[in-house]
């Protein structure tokens, strides 16, 4: 009996990267504790989040048990599906808060941009693997097209934040695949030069957000208010924080979106610098482990996808904490594994599953 249980346990955990899972669960745990405080001690959202976590873990386990070569096979269909759904959103999407981001499929509303977060790097990694060894500048040009299509579709929803992030995920694959430094520097220079020309193309509210970022006092009742109040929350937390459930900013309704995009402000207020450093370390461990897995991966596809996913984890965490603490403009990006929201949690754990699959299925490096 014991032997059977031991073997079952072994089968269950064989492909699971304990390090990665432990760190992720620690972050999720911190998230749930903060969520409880952020929602005025209600269990409704905690329950929802736990259900999503269950789904996320099952999916992670399933994907971890699939070899990367098999995952590579779904890349093309998944990407095509993602683009079709995005076009569907543009044509038949449901408008929520003024943006068309959702598609109503009868049973559930889905947000295809969420799918793209995984589908785009998968697609690019698959493409580069397929033509490994004879990659030329034309391939990079095609890859750029593969990136621009979903980025454009999401940008016009409008969801500038997500489109930039998805663009970044594509760029990471290009970078890891060896995009010339000259091109990277050139692109950066071009982006800097083009910024003033992009300005008139932005929607009023997008311009508003950027202006408000530069000067939060411009709009004390709008986005500037969010930013100012979040800074006050974090700053007033001090070294040790005000203690769990004791954040005045949080509980006096000063913080907007405090259970979703701004949950980090609640955390920073109640747990202080100690808490923030702990959280930074947790994210650093997660990203570091991801980079190790990336470096040790045995195929080009595995290397590219693992690297892109890891760097996306980093990007989300950095952008969210940056915007909440007032060093980046406010874009709608949740904090990975902390913010309330089922879809985001599930897609993050799918990413973890892919990392684990890469790690578990690597061939031993022959030296």
């Amino acid at each position, binding site marked *: 009996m014991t032997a059977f249980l031991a073997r079952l346990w072994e089968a269950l955990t064989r492909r699971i990267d304990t390090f990665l899972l432990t760190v992720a669960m620690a972050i999720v745990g911190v998230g749930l504790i903060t969520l409880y405080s952020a929602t005025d001690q209600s269990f409704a959202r905690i329950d929802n989040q736990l259900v999503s976590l269950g789904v996320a873990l099952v999916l992670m386990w399933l994907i971890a048990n699939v070899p990367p070569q098999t995952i590579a096979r779904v890349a093309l269909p998944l990407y095509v599906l993602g683009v079709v759904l995005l076009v569907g959103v543009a044509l038949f999407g449901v408008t929520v808060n003024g943006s068309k981001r959702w598609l109503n499929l009868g049973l559930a509303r889905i947000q295809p941009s969420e799918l793209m977060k995984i589908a785009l790097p998968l697609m690019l990694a698959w493409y580069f693997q397929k033509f490994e060894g004879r990659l030329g500048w034309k391939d990079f040009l095609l890859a750029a097209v593969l990136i621009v299509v979903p980025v454009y579709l999401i940008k016009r929803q409008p969801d500038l934040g997500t489109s930039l992030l998805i663009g970044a995920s594509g760029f990471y694959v290009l970078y890891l695949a060896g995009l010339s430094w000259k091109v990277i520097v050139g692109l950066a220079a071009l982006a800097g030069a083009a910024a003033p020309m992009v300005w008139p193309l932005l929607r009023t509210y997008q311009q508003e957000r950027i202006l408000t970022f530069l000067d939060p006092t411009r709009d004390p009742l709008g986005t500037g208010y969010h930013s100012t109040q979040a800074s006050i929350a974090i700053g007033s937390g001090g070294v040790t924080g005000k203690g769990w459930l004791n954040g005045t900013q949080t509980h006096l309704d000063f913080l907007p979106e405090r259970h979703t995009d701004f949950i980090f402000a609640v955390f920073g207020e109640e747990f202080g610098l100690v808490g923030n450093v702990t959280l930074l370390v947790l994210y650093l461990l997660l990203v570091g482990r991801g980079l190790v897995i990336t*470096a040790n991966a045995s195929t080009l596809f595995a290397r590219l996808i693992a690297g892109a996913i890891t760097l996306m984890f980093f990007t989300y965490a950095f952008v969210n904490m940056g915007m909440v603490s007032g060093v980046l403009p406010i874009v709608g990006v949740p904090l990975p594994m902390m913010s309330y929201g089922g879809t985001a949690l599930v897609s993050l754990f799918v990413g973890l599953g892919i990392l684990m699959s890469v790690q578990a299925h690597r061939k031993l490096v022959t030296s």
Partner: protein
Amino acid sequence: MALRFPFRAGKRGYPSVAELGSSELKNPERQVFLFRRRVVVAGLLVLAAFGALLARFVYLQIVQHHHYQTLAETNRIAVVPIVPNRGVITDRNGVVLAQSYSAYTLELQPTRIRNLDETIDALATIVDVQPRDRKRFRKLLEESRNFESLPLRTRLTDEEVARFAVNRYRFPGVEIKARLFRQYPFGEVASHVVGYIGRINDRDLARIAEWEETANYKGSDYIGKVGVELSYERELHGTTGVEEVEVDAAGRAVRTLSRTPPVAGNDLKLSLDIRLQEIAEAAFGARRGALVAIEPATGDVLAFVSRPGFDPNLFVDGIDAVNWELLNESPDKPLLNRPLRGAYPPGSTIKPFLALGALTSGKRSATQTIFDPGFFQIPGSAHRFRDDKKGGHGTVDMHKSIVASCDTYYYMLANETDIDDTQRFMTQFSFGRKTGIDIEGELTGVLPSRDWKRQRFAGKNYRDEHRKWYLGDSVSAGIGQGYNAFTPIQLASAMATLANDGVAFRPHLVKYIRDLRTGTVRQLEPEPTHTVPLRAEHLAVIKTALVGVAKEGTSAAAFRNSAYVSGGKTGTAQVFSLKGAEYRASQIDERLRDHAWYIAYAPADKPTIALAVLVENGGFGAQAAAPIARQVFDYYLTGEKKAGPAPAAPAPPPEAEDESD
């Protein structure tokens, strides 16, 4: 976090900046080395970025901690929006049609309540909570934004407020709030004009964002949905005020620190005369239909009837399912704004305009006659376009063609006139184009032309012969049938333009906008849109004929003994094609009966009112629609009040018996 992986690929010291496409990449080991170098660069960037965050945290939480702590402590100041009072809507004489009043609501903040059902059950023992209140609350909950407080009950009685106040400690997250409600004292009367407000939904939010008014709608729960409430939303809403209040640790307001009072929305004074409107609505009785009365010299809409109507008060709190179903699924379509969105064939009401067109183009002179044998045939065709009078009207000139409504005269005219010329002339009377009235949703209607037909049948299911314009199309269009379809507002506007000797005004419902703060009253100037180039002697021919209609023609019975001289034209629009069979109203299902039209103006010498009446399935225009016009004219011109349904006019006198309408 140390990144432990073997750097074993680099063999010859530092590689040159080998980039993609170079031959060196074909060496797998070298490739792995280059890849790992990129991973390390990325790792360093991650460290740098997190380092920057750390620096920011240290800055906020140590360096600036004192500053932010002070801010947080003094951040007991909550900014509370104060919803402005919505503007009042009155009729032209100042009678209130829509107003706001303050009442208490019982509101729940779902995020602060652990068990909603239990709480609602417990509340039900203190205040009256009906199942429909629960249902509505559920619906609101599904649509709600985060941390919103949602009304369970509205308009609490003083006793209920007192009872809840005593028990308040038992219900954290439940509060009584004073809110503004909208009331429409006239209920169904003029409901399609005034419209109603309803709770702000996602679409409204998008609209508000487009106006860049998002901040101004903070705290607002309602927005105009239909009618004047919708089209003048931005005048009516007002500017939201801000109150800075100090709150205690539990978030309750302790004292007010500063207050920017809200600015109430502007009051609207309509051109509508609600008494006239009441008379007009009552004149319809139980019949369905529409009426639009316009002052020709200004475009003021004096009455705007769509029957049946609905009670806008039902919509204010969110309509319940039962009432919604009743309204939405009724075959009488009470929610349809008929004057604006009902397109009906105009029947004979367009004959005076066609005659005027013929005079203007020179196709006909007033004295020119035709002979009417009772039907018309296109040369070379066997099909007979029948006249309503069996045996025909005999010799007919233009005057008689209008007074007796002779079809054959117009069949012949249409046969000789190019449809595109007709279309060009008729457009000037706003047929087939929007009049531009100041409420939303107006239909364009159909004034057929060759282009129109080509586009209408452009679809793949149609062939070229469907798209071609036939002479037969012209002939049936010539008596207001065929493809013609116009809204009552278009016919009323056309009548007003004709009555005003061709000077067209944009019909409008709002006449004055009063700014409460400055006390200034802004008049929306009558807007002459264009002048139809007409000759006075041609107009005189038509107007004399229209007066003849009411004096001795098809509507004479309805206007017998009137104290004023009016001009008008009856019309009967086919709903149902008889395919040559004879029309007998009694044998046809009520809903397939003809629509009855009457367009008219009065007094004939100096018109102050022009109107169009439509009675759906009313049968002959002379019998069903003209008496309604009579009742409206009587009140407006002589003050005579005959409230109640207009009687059907007596059967036309024997000599006119067979005349079409």
